[in-house]
Protein backbone atom coordinates (compact mmCIF):
# COMPACT_ATOMS: atom_id res chain seq x y z
CA UNK A 1 0.00 0.00 0.00
CA UNK A 2 2.91 2.29 0.65
CA UNK A 3 3.44 2.68 -3.08
CA UNK A 4 -0.02 4.01 -3.81
CA UNK A 5 0.23 7.73 -4.48
CA UNK A 6 -2.58 10.12 -3.65
CA UNK A 7 -2.44 11.52 -7.20
CA UNK A 8 -1.57 9.96 -10.51
CA UNK A 9 2.20 10.21 -10.72
CA UNK A 10 2.08 12.52 -13.74
CA UNK A 11 0.05 15.09 -11.81
CA UNK A 12 1.98 15.35 -8.56
CA UNK A 13 4.42 18.01 -9.73
CA UNK A 14 3.13 21.38 -10.91
CA UNK A 15 3.25 21.83 -14.67
CA UNK A 16 5.52 24.85 -14.62
CA UNK A 17 8.03 22.89 -12.57
CA UNK A 18 7.72 19.84 -14.83
CA UNK A 19 8.34 22.06 -17.80
CA UNK A 20 11.55 23.54 -16.42
CA UNK A 21 14.43 22.30 -18.53
CA UNK A 22 16.41 19.69 -16.58
CA UNK A 23 19.90 20.90 -15.87
CA UNK A 24 22.29 18.90 -18.03
CA UNK A 25 25.16 20.20 -15.98
CA UNK A 26 24.05 18.41 -12.81
CA UNK A 27 25.35 15.03 -13.97
CA UNK A 28 28.72 16.55 -14.81
CA UNK A 29 28.89 18.24 -11.42
CA UNK A 30 28.19 14.91 -9.73
CA UNK A 31 31.03 13.39 -11.73
CA UNK A 32 33.42 16.09 -10.50
CA UNK A 33 32.22 15.86 -6.90
CA UNK A 34 32.71 12.09 -6.95
CA UNK A 35 36.34 12.32 -8.05
CA UNK A 36 39.31 12.80 -5.75
CA UNK A 37 42.34 15.10 -6.13
CA UNK A 38 40.77 17.24 -8.83
CA UNK A 39 42.19 20.70 -9.49
CA UNK A 40 39.08 22.73 -9.95
CA UNK A 41 38.75 25.84 -12.05
CA UNK A 42 35.00 25.37 -11.88
CA UNK A 43 34.21 27.08 -8.62
CA UNK A 44 31.87 30.06 -8.65
CA UNK A 45 32.92 31.53 -5.34
CA UNK A 46 35.98 33.19 -3.80
CA UNK A 47 38.80 30.98 -2.53
CA UNK A 48 39.43 33.36 0.37
CA UNK A 49 37.80 32.65 3.70
CA UNK A 50 35.63 35.46 5.05
CA UNK A 51 38.00 38.03 6.64
CA UNK A 52 38.59 37.18 10.28
CA UNK A 53 37.21 40.41 11.78
CA UNK A 54 33.89 39.64 10.08
CA UNK A 55 33.83 36.03 11.27
CA UNK A 56 34.85 37.14 14.75
CA UNK A 57 31.93 39.60 14.85
CA UNK A 58 29.53 36.81 13.89
CA UNK A 59 30.95 34.51 16.57
CA UNK A 60 30.70 37.25 19.18
CA UNK A 61 27.08 37.95 18.28
CA UNK A 62 26.27 34.28 18.87
CA UNK A 63 28.04 34.36 22.23
CA UNK A 64 25.96 37.37 23.19
CA UNK A 65 22.77 35.56 22.23
CA UNK A 66 21.81 37.41 19.05
CA UNK A 67 19.79 34.52 17.67
CA UNK A 68 16.38 36.06 17.01
CA UNK A 69 14.37 37.16 13.97
CA UNK A 70 14.98 40.68 12.74
CA UNK A 71 12.73 43.22 11.05
CA UNK A 72 11.43 41.75 7.76
CA UNK A 73 13.32 44.35 5.78
CA UNK A 74 16.54 43.63 7.62
CA UNK A 75 18.18 45.21 10.67
CA UNK A 76 17.99 49.02 10.51
CA UNK A 77 21.74 49.30 11.28
CA UNK A 78 22.56 47.21 8.24
CA UNK A 79 20.16 49.04 5.93
CA UNK A 80 21.61 52.31 7.15
CA UNK A 81 25.15 51.08 6.41
CA UNK A 82 24.09 49.98 2.92
CA UNK A 83 22.51 53.38 2.31
CA UNK A 84 25.65 55.14 3.60
CA UNK A 85 27.89 52.94 1.48
CA UNK A 86 25.92 53.73 -1.67
CA UNK A 87 25.91 57.46 -0.93
CA UNK A 88 29.65 57.61 -0.21
CA UNK A 89 30.87 55.19 -2.81
CA UNK A 90 28.58 55.84 -5.75
CA UNK A 91 26.88 59.17 -4.86
CA UNK A 92 23.42 57.67 -5.03
CA UNK A 93 20.87 58.08 -2.29
CA UNK A 94 18.45 55.38 -1.16
CA UNK A 95 16.19 55.80 1.84
CA UNK A 96 17.15 53.02 4.24
CA UNK A 97 13.57 52.58 5.39
CA UNK A 98 11.64 52.65 2.13
CA UNK A 99 14.05 51.78 -0.62
CA UNK A 100 16.33 49.03 0.70
CA UNK A 101 15.50 45.38 1.45
CA UNK A 102 17.95 42.87 2.90
CA UNK A 103 17.63 39.51 1.14
CA UNK A 104 19.00 36.00 1.47
CA UNK A 105 21.68 36.44 -1.17
CA UNK A 106 21.15 38.11 -4.52
CA UNK A 107 19.40 34.86 -5.49
CA UNK A 108 16.42 35.72 -3.31
CA UNK A 109 16.54 39.31 -4.52
CA UNK A 110 16.19 38.09 -8.11
CA UNK A 111 13.25 35.86 -7.29
CA UNK A 112 11.49 38.65 -5.38
CA UNK A 113 12.14 41.19 -8.12
CA UNK A 114 10.60 39.04 -10.83
CA UNK A 115 7.69 37.95 -8.67
CA UNK A 116 6.98 41.56 -7.70
CA UNK A 117 6.83 42.93 -11.24
CA UNK A 118 5.72 40.11 -13.54
CA UNK A 119 2.20 39.03 -14.42
CA UNK A 120 1.75 35.77 -16.32
CA UNK A 121 2.85 36.27 -19.90
CA UNK A 122 5.01 39.34 -19.25
CA UNK A 123 8.27 39.07 -21.11
CA UNK A 124 11.79 39.60 -19.80
CA UNK A 125 14.90 40.05 -21.90
CA UNK A 126 17.61 37.75 -20.52
CA UNK A 127 21.13 38.00 -21.94
CA UNK A 128 22.85 35.01 -23.52
CA UNK A 129 25.09 33.92 -21.88
CA UNK A 130 24.10 34.81 -18.36
CA UNK A 131 23.89 33.33 -14.91
CA UNK A 132 21.96 30.07 -15.04
CA UNK A 133 19.11 30.99 -12.70
CA UNK A 134 17.72 34.04 -14.53
CA UNK A 135 15.67 32.16 -17.11
CA UNK A 136 14.19 29.54 -14.77
CA UNK A 137 13.28 32.15 -12.13
CA UNK A 138 11.43 34.24 -14.74
CA UNK A 139 9.58 31.13 -15.93
CA UNK A 140 8.63 30.05 -12.40
CA UNK A 141 6.81 33.36 -11.93
CA UNK A 142 4.87 32.74 -15.13
CA UNK A 143 6.92 35.20 -17.15
CA UNK A 144 8.38 34.53 -20.57
CA UNK A 145 12.07 34.68 -21.41
CA UNK A 146 13.21 36.53 -24.51
CA UNK A 147 16.86 35.69 -25.26
CA UNK A 148 19.09 38.70 -25.71
CA UNK A 149 22.03 37.41 -27.71
CA UNK A 150 25.55 38.66 -27.16
CA UNK A 151 28.56 37.84 -29.24
CA UNK A 152 32.24 37.05 -28.76
CA UNK A 153 32.93 39.76 -31.38
CA UNK A 154 31.71 42.44 -28.96
CA UNK A 155 33.30 40.67 -25.99
CA UNK A 156 29.84 39.35 -25.06
CA UNK A 157 28.52 42.86 -24.47
CA UNK A 158 24.91 43.87 -24.69
CA UNK A 159 24.67 46.74 -27.17
CA UNK A 160 21.82 49.16 -27.90
CA UNK A 161 21.45 47.40 -31.27
CA UNK A 162 21.21 43.96 -29.67
CA UNK A 163 18.38 45.24 -27.48
CA UNK A 164 16.63 46.77 -30.50
CA UNK A 165 16.94 43.44 -32.33
CA UNK A 166 15.59 41.49 -29.41
CA UNK A 167 12.78 43.76 -28.26
CA UNK A 168 9.23 42.66 -29.00
CA UNK A 169 5.69 43.45 -27.86
CA UNK A 170 5.04 42.51 -24.24
CA UNK A 171 8.58 42.95 -22.93
CA UNK A 172 8.32 44.54 -19.51
CA UNK A 173 11.78 44.15 -18.09
CA UNK A 174 15.38 43.37 -18.83
CA UNK A 175 18.05 41.87 -16.63
CA UNK A 176 21.71 42.74 -16.81
CA UNK A 177 24.62 41.33 -14.81
CA UNK A 178 27.94 43.12 -14.82
CA UNK A 179 30.69 42.17 -14.30
CA UNK A 180 29.15 39.05 -15.77
CA UNK A 181 29.19 35.44 -14.67
CA UNK A 182 30.30 33.55 -16.87
CA UNK A 183 32.09 35.95 -19.25
CA UNK A 184 33.62 38.51 -16.87
CA UNK A 185 32.39 41.23 -19.20
CA UNK A 186 31.60 44.66 -17.79
CA UNK A 187 30.66 48.10 -19.08
CA UNK A 188 32.06 51.57 -18.65
CA UNK A 189 29.82 54.55 -18.01
CA UNK A 190 29.58 55.55 -21.66
CA UNK A 191 28.47 52.08 -22.73
CA UNK A 192 25.89 51.96 -19.93
CA UNK A 193 24.50 55.36 -20.98
CA UNK A 194 23.89 54.05 -24.51
CA UNK A 195 22.09 50.99 -23.14
CA UNK A 196 20.06 53.20 -20.78
CA UNK A 197 18.70 55.22 -23.71
CA UNK A 198 17.11 52.12 -25.25
CA UNK A 199 15.75 50.93 -21.90
CA UNK A 200 14.12 54.31 -21.35
CA UNK A 201 12.85 54.40 -24.94
CA UNK A 202 10.96 51.12 -24.42
CA UNK A 203 9.96 52.06 -20.86
CA UNK A 204 11.44 48.91 -19.33
CA UNK A 205 12.16 47.97 -15.74
CA UNK A 206 15.80 47.00 -15.33
CA UNK A 207 16.98 44.36 -12.90
CA UNK A 208 20.67 45.04 -12.42
CA UNK A 209 22.67 42.28 -10.74
CA UNK A 210 25.90 43.95 -9.69
CA UNK A 211 27.16 41.38 -7.19
CA UNK A 212 30.65 41.43 -8.74
CA UNK A 213 30.88 45.26 -8.69
CA UNK A 214 33.93 45.39 -6.42
CA UNK A 215 35.80 43.09 -8.76
CA UNK A 216 36.02 45.50 -11.69
CA UNK A 217 39.59 45.91 -12.87
CA UNK A 218 40.06 48.28 -15.77
CA UNK A 219 37.73 51.15 -14.90
CA UNK A 220 35.45 52.26 -12.06
CA UNK A 221 32.22 50.37 -11.70
CA UNK A 222 29.13 52.48 -12.41
CA UNK A 223 25.86 51.27 -10.88
CA UNK A 224 23.10 51.43 -13.47
CA UNK A 225 20.82 53.32 -11.09
CA UNK A 226 23.24 56.28 -11.00
CA UNK A 227 22.54 57.05 -14.66
CA UNK A 228 20.05 59.75 -15.52
CA UNK A 229 16.49 58.46 -15.77
CA UNK A 230 17.42 54.99 -14.47
CA UNK A 231 16.98 55.08 -10.68
CA UNK A 232 13.20 55.14 -10.90
CA UNK A 233 13.17 52.04 -13.12
CA UNK A 234 16.07 50.00 -11.73
CA UNK A 235 15.98 47.21 -9.20
CA UNK A 236 19.57 47.31 -8.01
CA UNK A 237 20.76 43.99 -6.60
CA UNK A 238 23.98 43.38 -4.76
CA UNK A 239 25.35 41.35 -1.88
CA UNK A 240 28.29 40.37 0.24
CA UNK A 241 29.23 37.00 -1.27
CA UNK A 242 31.80 38.04 -3.83
CA UNK A 243 33.29 41.29 -2.50
CA UNK A 244 33.76 40.06 1.07
CA UNK A 245 34.06 36.32 0.37
CA UNK A 246 30.86 35.63 2.32
CA UNK A 247 28.99 33.22 0.04
CA UNK A 248 27.93 30.90 2.85
CA UNK A 249 26.38 33.74 4.86
CA UNK A 250 23.79 34.12 2.08
CA UNK A 251 23.30 37.84 2.34
CA UNK A 252 22.27 40.33 -0.31
CA UNK A 253 20.21 43.44 -0.71
CA UNK A 254 17.87 45.11 -3.15
CA UNK A 255 17.61 48.88 -3.60
CA UNK A 256 14.93 50.40 -5.76
CA UNK A 257 11.84 52.54 -6.08
CA UNK A 258 9.74 52.42 -2.89
CA UNK A 259 6.71 50.80 -4.57
CA UNK A 260 8.75 47.91 -5.98
CA UNK A 261 10.69 47.40 -2.74
CA UNK A 262 7.34 47.37 -0.88
CA UNK A 263 6.07 44.70 -3.29
CA UNK A 264 9.22 42.63 -2.85
CA UNK A 265 9.05 43.03 0.94
CA UNK A 266 5.47 41.72 0.93
CA UNK A 267 6.60 38.46 -0.70
CA UNK A 268 9.76 38.28 1.40
CA UNK A 269 7.85 38.56 4.70
CA UNK A 270 5.64 35.60 3.82
CA UNK A 271 8.23 33.39 2.17
CA UNK A 272 11.47 34.16 4.03
CA UNK A 273 10.49 36.30 7.03
CA UNK A 274 13.99 37.72 7.29
CA UNK A 275 17.63 37.01 6.53
CA UNK A 276 19.71 35.35 9.25
CA UNK A 277 20.62 37.73 12.06
CA UNK A 278 24.17 36.34 12.28
CA UNK A 279 24.73 37.08 8.61
CA UNK A 280 23.26 40.56 9.00
CA UNK A 281 25.56 41.40 11.90
CA UNK A 282 28.57 40.04 10.00
CA UNK A 283 27.61 42.05 6.92
CA UNK A 284 27.27 45.27 8.93
CA UNK A 285 30.84 44.71 10.10
CA UNK A 286 31.92 44.04 6.50
CA UNK A 287 30.55 47.38 5.34
CA UNK A 288 32.00 49.26 8.30
CA UNK A 289 35.51 47.79 8.31
CA UNK A 290 35.96 45.54 5.29
CA UNK A 291 37.26 48.01 2.75
CA UNK A 292 40.90 46.92 3.01
CA UNK A 293 40.01 43.25 2.62
CA UNK A 294 38.14 43.98 -0.59
CA UNK A 295 41.11 45.92 -1.95
CA UNK A 296 43.52 43.10 -1.07
CA UNK A 297 41.37 40.42 -2.72
CA UNK A 298 40.82 42.59 -5.79
CA UNK A 299 44.57 43.08 -6.27
CA UNK A 300 45.06 39.34 -6.04
CA UNK A 301 42.25 38.51 -8.50
CA UNK A 302 43.57 41.10 -10.94
CA UNK A 303 46.98 39.42 -11.03
CA UNK A 304 45.42 36.02 -11.49
CA UNK A 305 43.19 37.33 -14.29
CA UNK A 306 46.18 38.74 -16.13
CA UNK A 307 48.11 35.53 -15.60
CA UNK A 308 45.27 33.28 -16.78
CA UNK A 309 44.40 35.29 -19.89
CA UNK A 310 48.10 35.39 -20.82
CA UNK A 311 48.66 31.71 -20.08
CA UNK A 312 45.49 30.46 -21.84
CA UNK A 313 46.22 32.48 -24.97
CA UNK A 314 49.78 31.12 -24.88
CA UNK A 315 48.63 27.49 -24.87
CA UNK A 316 46.16 28.08 -27.70
CA UNK A 317 42.84 28.75 -26.00
CA UNK A 318 41.97 32.25 -27.15
CA UNK A 319 40.03 34.38 -24.71
CA UNK A 320 39.07 38.04 -24.47
CA UNK A 321 40.28 40.10 -21.52
CA UNK A 322 37.37 40.13 -19.05
CA UNK A 323 36.89 43.42 -17.20
CA UNK A 324 35.68 41.94 -13.95
CA UNK A 325 34.45 39.04 -11.77
CA UNK A 326 36.79 36.03 -11.52
CA UNK A 327 36.04 34.18 -14.72
CA UNK A 328 37.62 33.86 -18.13
CA UNK A 329 35.62 32.44 -20.99
CA UNK A 330 38.02 30.99 -23.56
CA UNK A 331 37.03 29.46 -26.88
CA UNK A 332 37.77 25.78 -27.49
CA UNK A 333 36.74 25.94 -31.14
CA UNK A 334 40.23 24.92 -32.28
CA UNK A 335 39.80 21.51 -30.61
CA UNK A 336 36.68 20.77 -32.62
CA UNK A 337 35.09 19.40 -29.46
CA UNK A 338 31.78 20.19 -27.81
CA UNK A 339 32.25 21.89 -24.46
CA UNK A 340 30.77 19.05 -22.40
CA UNK A 341 32.94 16.44 -24.17
CA UNK A 342 35.99 18.63 -23.63
CA UNK A 343 35.19 19.12 -19.94
CA UNK A 344 34.58 15.40 -19.34
CA UNK A 345 37.65 14.28 -21.25
CA UNK A 346 39.89 16.81 -19.51
CA UNK A 347 38.48 15.75 -16.15
CA UNK A 348 39.08 12.06 -16.84
CA UNK A 349 42.53 12.41 -18.35
CA UNK A 350 44.03 15.30 -16.39
CA UNK A 351 41.79 15.75 -13.36
CA UNK A 352 41.09 19.38 -14.09
CA UNK A 353 37.51 20.54 -13.64
CA UNK A 354 35.90 23.50 -15.38
CA UNK A 355 32.41 24.43 -16.47
CA UNK A 356 31.38 23.72 -20.08
CA UNK A 357 29.91 26.69 -21.94
CA UNK A 358 26.79 24.67 -22.72
CA UNK A 359 25.77 25.11 -19.06
CA UNK A 360 25.00 28.70 -20.04
CA UNK A 361 23.19 27.92 -23.31
CA UNK A 362 23.60 25.45 -26.18
CA UNK A 363 24.96 28.11 -28.50
CA UNK A 364 27.95 28.55 -26.16
CA UNK A 365 29.26 25.10 -26.92
CA UNK A 366 32.54 26.50 -28.24
CA UNK A 367 33.43 27.97 -24.85
CA UNK A 368 34.41 26.93 -21.35
CA UNK A 369 34.19 28.92 -18.13
CA UNK A 370 37.36 29.00 -16.09
CA UNK A 371 37.31 30.44 -12.61
CA UNK A 372 40.54 31.94 -11.32
CA UNK A 373 39.27 32.07 -7.75
CA UNK A 374 41.93 29.53 -6.88
CA UNK A 375 45.44 29.68 -5.51
CA UNK A 376 48.19 30.70 -7.85
CA UNK A 377 49.87 27.29 -7.51
CA UNK A 378 46.62 25.61 -8.56
CA UNK A 379 46.20 27.89 -11.56
CA UNK A 380 49.74 27.21 -12.70
CA UNK A 381 49.35 23.45 -12.35
CA UNK A 382 45.95 23.48 -14.08
CA UNK A 383 47.28 25.45 -17.05
CA UNK A 384 50.19 23.01 -17.37
CA UNK A 385 47.77 20.07 -17.37
CA UNK A 386 45.45 21.68 -19.93
CA UNK A 387 48.50 22.38 -22.09
CA UNK A 388 49.55 18.72 -21.87
CA UNK A 389 46.02 17.65 -22.68
CA UNK A 390 45.85 19.86 -25.77
CA UNK A 391 49.21 18.64 -27.03
CA UNK A 392 48.38 14.99 -26.43
CA UNK A 393 45.00 15.18 -28.13
CA UNK A 394 46.56 16.89 -31.16
CA UNK A 395 49.14 14.16 -31.24
CA UNK A 396 46.38 11.57 -31.00
CA UNK A 397 44.65 12.98 -34.07
CA UNK A 398 47.84 12.82 -36.11
CA UNK A 399 48.60 9.20 -35.31
CA UNK A 400 45.08 8.16 -36.26
CA UNK A 401 45.63 9.62 -39.72
Amino acid at each position, binding site marked *: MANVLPFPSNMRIAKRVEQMAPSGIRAFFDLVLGMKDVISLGVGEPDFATPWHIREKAIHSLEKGYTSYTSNKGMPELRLEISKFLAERYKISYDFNEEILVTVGVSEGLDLAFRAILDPGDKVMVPDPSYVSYGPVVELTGGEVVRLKTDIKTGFKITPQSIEDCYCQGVKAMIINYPCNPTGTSYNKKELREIAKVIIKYDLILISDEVYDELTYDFDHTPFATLKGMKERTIYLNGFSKAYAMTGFRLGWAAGPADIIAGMTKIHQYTMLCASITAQIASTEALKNGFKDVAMMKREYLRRRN*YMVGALNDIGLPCHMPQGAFYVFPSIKSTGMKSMDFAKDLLNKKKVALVPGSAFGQELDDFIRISYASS*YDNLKEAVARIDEYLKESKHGKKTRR
Partner: protein
Amino acid sequence: MDDILEILANDARVTPEEIAKMTRKKAGDIKKAIKDYENNGTIVKYKTIIDHEKIRGENSSFVRALIEVSITPQKDVGFDNVAERIYSFPEVTSCYLVSGAYDLLVMVEGRNIHTVSNFVASKLSSMEGVRRTSTHFLLKKYKEDGQILKKASHGKRLAISI
Protein backbone atom coordinates in the same frame (compact mmCIF):
# COMPACT_ATOMS: atom_id res chain seq x y z
CA MET B 1 54.43 48.25 -1.77
CA ASP B 2 54.52 47.74 -5.51
CA ASP B 3 53.16 44.66 -7.26
CA ILE B 4 56.51 42.92 -7.64
CA LEU B 5 57.42 43.24 -3.98
CA GLU B 6 53.97 42.19 -2.82
CA ILE B 7 54.05 39.08 -5.03
CA LEU B 8 57.58 38.10 -3.94
CA ALA B 9 56.93 38.85 -0.28
CA ASN B 10 54.15 36.29 -0.43
CA ASP B 11 55.98 33.70 -2.53
CA ALA B 12 59.61 34.16 -3.51
CA ARG B 13 59.43 31.27 -5.97
CA VAL B 14 57.31 33.15 -8.52
CA THR B 15 59.47 33.71 -11.59
CA PRO B 16 59.98 37.05 -13.38
CA GLU B 17 58.15 35.59 -16.39
CA GLU B 18 55.15 34.75 -14.24
CA ILE B 19 55.17 38.17 -12.56
CA ALA B 20 55.28 39.70 -16.04
CA LYS B 21 52.10 37.84 -16.96
CA MET B 22 50.38 38.83 -13.72
CA THR B 23 51.19 42.51 -14.13
CA ARG B 24 51.01 42.66 -17.94
CA LYS B 25 54.57 43.91 -18.21
CA LYS B 26 57.63 42.66 -20.04
CA ALA B 27 59.68 39.91 -18.37
CA GLY B 28 62.87 41.88 -19.05
CA ASP B 29 61.52 44.89 -17.18
CA ILE B 30 60.53 42.72 -14.22
CA LYS B 31 63.99 41.13 -14.11
CA LYS B 32 65.60 44.54 -14.13
CA ALA B 33 63.32 45.87 -11.40
CA ILE B 34 64.10 42.85 -9.19
CA LYS B 35 67.83 43.30 -9.80
CA ASP B 36 67.51 46.97 -8.80
CA TYR B 37 65.66 46.02 -5.62
CA GLU B 38 68.38 43.51 -4.81
CA ASN B 39 71.16 46.00 -5.52
CA ASN B 40 69.72 48.83 -3.46
CA GLY B 41 68.91 46.53 -0.55
CA THR B 42 65.11 46.71 -0.76
CA ILE B 43 65.10 42.98 -1.29
CA VAL B 44 67.52 41.72 1.33
CA LYS B 45 67.28 37.96 1.02
CA TYR B 46 65.00 35.09 -0.08
CA LYS B 47 64.21 32.70 2.77
CA THR B 48 61.99 29.77 3.61
CA ILE B 49 59.73 29.65 6.64
CA ILE B 50 60.28 26.33 8.39
CA ASP B 51 58.26 24.89 11.22
CA HIS B 52 61.11 23.43 13.28
CA GLU B 53 58.72 21.41 15.38
CA LYS B 54 58.10 19.24 12.31
CA ILE B 55 61.75 18.28 12.00
CA ARG B 56 62.75 15.10 13.81
CA GLY B 57 66.25 14.02 14.71
CA GLU B 58 69.08 14.93 17.01
CA ASN B 59 70.24 18.17 15.52
CA SER B 60 66.85 19.59 14.82
CA SER B 61 65.81 20.88 18.22
CA PHE B 62 66.09 24.57 18.90
CA VAL B 63 65.40 26.70 21.88
CA ARG B 64 64.37 30.27 21.34
CA ALA B 65 64.14 33.12 23.78
CA LEU B 66 62.91 36.69 23.61
CA ILE B 67 65.15 38.91 25.70
CA GLU B 68 64.27 42.39 26.86
CA VAL B 69 67.47 44.39 27.15
CA SER B 70 67.80 47.76 28.90
CA ILE B 71 70.88 49.72 27.91
CA THR B 72 72.55 53.01 28.71
CA PRO B 73 72.55 55.17 25.60
CA GLN B 74 75.93 56.54 24.59
CA LYS B 75 76.78 60.05 23.56
CA ASP B 76 76.22 60.77 19.82
CA VAL B 77 75.40 57.20 18.81
CA GLY B 78 72.50 56.50 21.19
CA PHE B 79 71.65 52.81 21.18
CA ASP B 80 73.19 51.88 17.86
CA ASN B 81 76.67 50.84 19.02
CA VAL B 82 75.46 48.52 21.74
CA ALA B 83 72.79 47.18 19.39
CA GLU B 84 75.46 46.38 16.81
CA ARG B 85 77.59 44.54 19.34
CA ILE B 86 74.56 42.49 20.29
CA TYR B 87 73.14 41.69 16.85
CA SER B 88 76.57 40.71 15.51
CA PHE B 89 76.39 37.49 17.55
CA PRO B 90 75.11 34.69 15.30
CA GLU B 91 72.96 33.45 18.20
CA VAL B 92 70.84 36.60 17.78
CA THR B 93 68.20 36.03 15.09
CA SER B 94 66.30 39.30 15.48
CA CYS B 95 67.02 42.59 17.19
CA TYR B 96 64.65 45.56 17.49
CA LEU B 97 64.84 48.94 19.21
CA VAL B 98 61.48 49.44 20.88
CA SER B 99 59.65 52.05 22.91
CA GLY B 100 58.49 51.29 26.46
CA ALA B 101 59.97 49.83 29.61
CA TYR B 102 63.12 48.43 27.94
CA ASP B 103 65.15 49.33 24.87
CA LEU B 104 66.06 46.31 22.74
CA LEU B 105 63.97 43.28 21.99
CA VAL B 106 66.37 40.51 21.05
CA MET B 107 65.52 37.05 19.81
CA VAL B 108 68.13 34.41 20.53
CA GLU B 109 68.33 30.85 19.24
CA GLY B 110 70.36 27.99 20.73
CA ARG B 111 70.70 24.19 20.84
CA ASN B 112 69.20 23.94 24.30
CA ILE B 113 68.22 25.94 27.35
CA HIS B 114 71.83 25.93 28.62
CA THR B 115 73.38 27.41 25.49
CA VAL B 116 70.85 30.22 25.53
CA SER B 117 71.31 30.82 29.28
CA ASN B 118 75.08 30.81 28.88
CA PHE B 119 74.87 33.30 26.07
CA VAL B 120 72.71 35.65 28.15
CA ALA B 121 74.88 35.31 31.24
CA SER B 122 78.33 35.43 29.72
CA LYS B 123 77.83 37.61 26.67
CA LEU B 124 74.75 39.74 26.93
CA SER B 125 74.23 40.84 30.52
CA SER B 126 77.92 41.36 31.11
CA MET B 127 78.31 43.62 28.08
CA GLU B 128 79.29 47.19 28.75
CA GLY B 129 76.29 49.48 28.48
CA VAL B 130 73.76 46.71 29.21
CA ARG B 131 71.96 47.52 32.43
CA ARG B 132 69.40 44.75 32.74
CA THR B 133 68.03 41.75 30.82
CA SER B 134 64.85 39.75 31.15
CA THR B 135 64.65 36.43 29.33
CA HIS B 136 61.45 34.76 28.09
CA PHE B 137 61.80 31.29 26.64
CA LEU B 138 59.44 30.58 23.75
CA LEU B 139 57.07 27.72 24.45
CA LYS B 140 55.16 27.47 21.18
CA LYS B 141 55.10 29.25 17.84
CA TYR B 142 51.65 29.91 16.41
CA LYS B 143 52.38 32.44 13.69
CA GLU B 144 55.56 33.75 12.13
CA ASP B 145 56.06 36.51 9.56
CA GLY B 146 52.36 36.64 8.83
CA GLN B 147 52.20 32.91 8.34
CA ILE B 148 50.06 30.74 10.58
CA LEU B 149 52.17 27.63 11.14
CA LYS B 150 49.33 25.21 11.65
CA LYS B 151 48.41 23.75 8.27
CA ALA B 152 45.14 25.33 7.11
CA SER B 153 42.22 23.00 6.66
CA HIS B 154 41.16 22.79 3.03
CA GLY B 155 38.33 21.57 0.90
CA LYS B 156 35.51 23.54 2.37
CA ARG B 157 34.29 24.75 -1.01
CA LEU B 158 32.40 22.46 -3.35
CA ALA B 159 34.77 21.38 -6.12
CA ILE B 160 32.45 22.87 -8.70
CA SER B 161 29.61 25.40 -8.67
CA ILE B 162 27.93 27.87 -10.98
